[in-house]
């Protein structure tokens, strides 16, 4: 990227042209360049996971398993799960926008531990390499859930390589989490109290708390799984009296908070976009901030709702079901507060706003169907069917990826100093919305009708809805390829962006686009509240 902008004579000094060549990128300690390193790697993983998803949707066009063999299909959905969860959804907003914007929003010159920040990227890439070797060396067919005893004793795929890859990438998550928490506590500009922080910073902080508290349990679970498979140290081995349900407990203790690692940053981005494009203060700022923390806390108490039919005690199931209902309250509060923010605002429908509004709609449907699967009697029918697949795609793709797109377009001028083509961005937002609903809404009906997930050959009567779903997936793929094209195009030919193209509030908009290497000439003083849209910037 930096080579491109060198030819442009009137190039203002910024972090992009502060150094050229591979070494200035691969050994950088600048949080903004590390954000770029992450941005490029997770985009690569996103399209790898997307390719696997495309093959899955093509396979499911016909009831018989004729495109892929059953082993190949199992490897595809496992690859799609592992790559999307650990190499795109969990790192995406925190490591790209979080890395880039946190110091800028706090008025700091960099993260608390810049070297740790770069190390977390190298650990991320190392984890990625291990997982990719698993794909090449025999493929991984356990799904992203690695349930024992299949993963330890019956799968003949490269489970050890994939488990090691995910174990390593877990440390990248931990390092990022520690860095964000210390930065938010220790490096705020003078006058920037907690309740003057943008909600994006609150969301990154809560996400980092979950990363630090949940990821270690995944690490030890994968270690126990690894030593059982590699050395025969039977931990979950039923022959020794081991309990596969115990593996499920340890796995889901991490994996449910992990879905909030994916979701909370998205909520932070949507709060920023709604406030900016409605040009109005966020409604109920304190309630929004505490809702973020409440989601992070309650997210740890509900994991048993993944195990209602797994042989878990039915009374524990009732307890987990009640706790799962309570965890939906903060999310409902946030949705209503976003809507209340629109009231009496000056609403513009730029691309970030379109993505943010589609987040609210799709996340609402995803959240409400979450309450369906948290209801005990319904989960008996819906567990491990396409209803659950549709639910978590509505929350992850409809919610988190829409917010990722919103944030990407909202801060693109600040990150690259270039404006993206507005018309094309709105077109892609609409295509993504339509394609997404066409892909995943039929799966709700399939799920209730009883089509199990992870089937590469299914009963004939499910075919019609699957054809709709696959068609929608094609449209969704177009919707995601468009931004790749016009954003890269904008790097060279996009109009040059001013410091504050959206007339937004926040410290990141007070510096030039793209920002200078050390962010702030002198540390700014903050006097007014967050989202002071009722006062001029």
């Amino acid at each position, binding site marked *: 990227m930096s080579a491109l902008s060198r030819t442009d004579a009137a190039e203002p000094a910024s972090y992009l042209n502060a150094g050229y060549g591979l070494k200035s990128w691969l050994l950088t300690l600048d949080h903004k360049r590390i954000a770029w390193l992450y941005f490029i790697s997770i985009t690569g993983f996103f399209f790898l996971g997307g390719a696997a998803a495309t093959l899955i949707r093509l396979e499911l066009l016909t009831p018989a398993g004729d495109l892929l063999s059953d082993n190949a299909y199992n490897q595809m959905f496992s690859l799609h799960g592992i790559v999307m969860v650990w190499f795109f959804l969990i790192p995406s907003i925190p490591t790209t926008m979080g890395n880039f914007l946190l110091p800028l929003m706090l008025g700091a010159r*960099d993260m608390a531990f810049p070297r740790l920040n770069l190390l977390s990227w190298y650990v991320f890439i190392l984890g990625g390499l291990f997982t990719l070797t698993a794909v090449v060396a025999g493929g991984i067919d356990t799904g992203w859930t690695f349930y024992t005893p299949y993963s330890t004793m019956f799968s003949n795929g490269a489970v050890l390589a994939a488990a090691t890859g995910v174990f390593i990438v877990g440390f990248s998550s931990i390092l990022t989490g*520690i860095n964000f928490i*210390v930065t938010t506590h*220790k*490096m705020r500009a003078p006058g920037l109290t907690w309740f003057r922080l943008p909600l994006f910073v609150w969301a990154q902080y809560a996400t980092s708390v979950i990363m630090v*508290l949940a990821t270690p349990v995944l690490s*030890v679970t994968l270690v126990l799984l690894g030593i059982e498979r590699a050395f025969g140290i*039977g931990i979950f081995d039923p022959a020794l*009296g*081991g309990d596969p349900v115990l593996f499920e407990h340890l796995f889901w203790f991490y994996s449910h908070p992990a879905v909030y690692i994916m979701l909370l940053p998205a909520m932070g981005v949507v709060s920023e976009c709604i406030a900016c494009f409605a040009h109005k203060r966020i409604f109920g700022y304190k309630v929004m901030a505490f809702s973020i923390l409440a989601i992070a806390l309650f997210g740890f108490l509900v994991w048993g709702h993944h195990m209602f039919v797994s042989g878990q005690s039915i009374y524990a199931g009732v307890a987990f079901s009640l706790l799962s209902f309570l965890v939906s309250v903060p999310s409902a509060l946030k949705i209503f507060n976003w809507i209340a923010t629109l009231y009496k605002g000056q609403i513009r429908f730029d691309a970030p706003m379109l993505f943010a509004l589609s987040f609210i709609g799709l996340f609402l449907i995803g959240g409400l169907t979450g309450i369906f699967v948290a209801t005990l009697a319904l989960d008996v029918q819906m567990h491990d069917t396409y209803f659950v697949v549709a639910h978590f795609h509505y929350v992850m793709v409809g919610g988190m990826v829409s917010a990722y797109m919103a944030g990407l377009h909202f801060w693109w001028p600040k990150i690259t100093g270039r404006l993206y083509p507005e018309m094309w961005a709105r077109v892609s937002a609409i295509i993504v919305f339509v394609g997404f609903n066409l892909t995943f809404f039929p799966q709700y009906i399939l799920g209730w009708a009883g089509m199990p997930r992870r089937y590469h050959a299914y009963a004939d009567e499910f075919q019609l809805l699957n054809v709709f779903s696959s068609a929608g997936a094609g449209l969704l793929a177009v919707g995601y390829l468009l931004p790749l094209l016009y954003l890269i195009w904008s790097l060279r030919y996009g109009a040059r962006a001013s410091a504050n193209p959206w007339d937004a509030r926040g410290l990141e908009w007070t510096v030039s686009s793209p920002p200078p290497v050390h962010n702030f000439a002198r540390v700014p003083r903050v006097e007014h509240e967050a989202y002071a849209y009722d006062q001029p910037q």
Partner: protein
Amino acid sequence: MTSRSNRTTVIIAHQFESADQQLDADLLGMWLFLVTELLLFSGAFLAFSVYYHQYSEAFSAAAGELHWLLAGFNTALLLTSGLTVALAEQAAVENNRRATLGLLALTIALGLAFLALKGYEYHSEYRAGLIPFLDQPFAFDGPDPIHAMLFYNFYFTLTGLHALHMIIGLSAMGVILVSGYRWRDRHRVARQVRIAGLYWAFVDIVWVLVYTSLYLVGR
């Protein structure tokens, strides 16, 4: 020994405003890392306590075979090293170079002694045929040998995980000993010994819990 003037001012990284902001950040970062270590061990402890709840007699019988006296002495060794590293930290704050380096070396020696004794214990269990994995013959004559295998799997996993963390702690202290030897920047050495001391005390805490739950609870 070259005696360059000792740097009195603290070197502050460019992103920090003041020395104590930097120290606070380092300590907070280290404590957060220790939180992740604690949760890592508590995941393994949860598995152990669930199985202990289900197979308490078999686990008690299996725990009876362990060398609890030798391990008890080993625990005393580790607690002593906990003391010496705390004293080293205190000496570094008082800018007492000889005491700091001496106590640090003593801590490393005690740690290595612990690992040596642990290795001997592993060897005696290997000879007694109590290793249930790597397709070793498992000769356990007590009741319920199948669940005893589960106990020994946890015994080797928990103590192995702990030994791995000790090796990390020892090598960190070794690096500090070498790099701090010339005492060029005593504030930096003090900060490093403080951080290593936190980590080593955490390793002590984990061993106290491991020793009690594996060796003592079952007896």
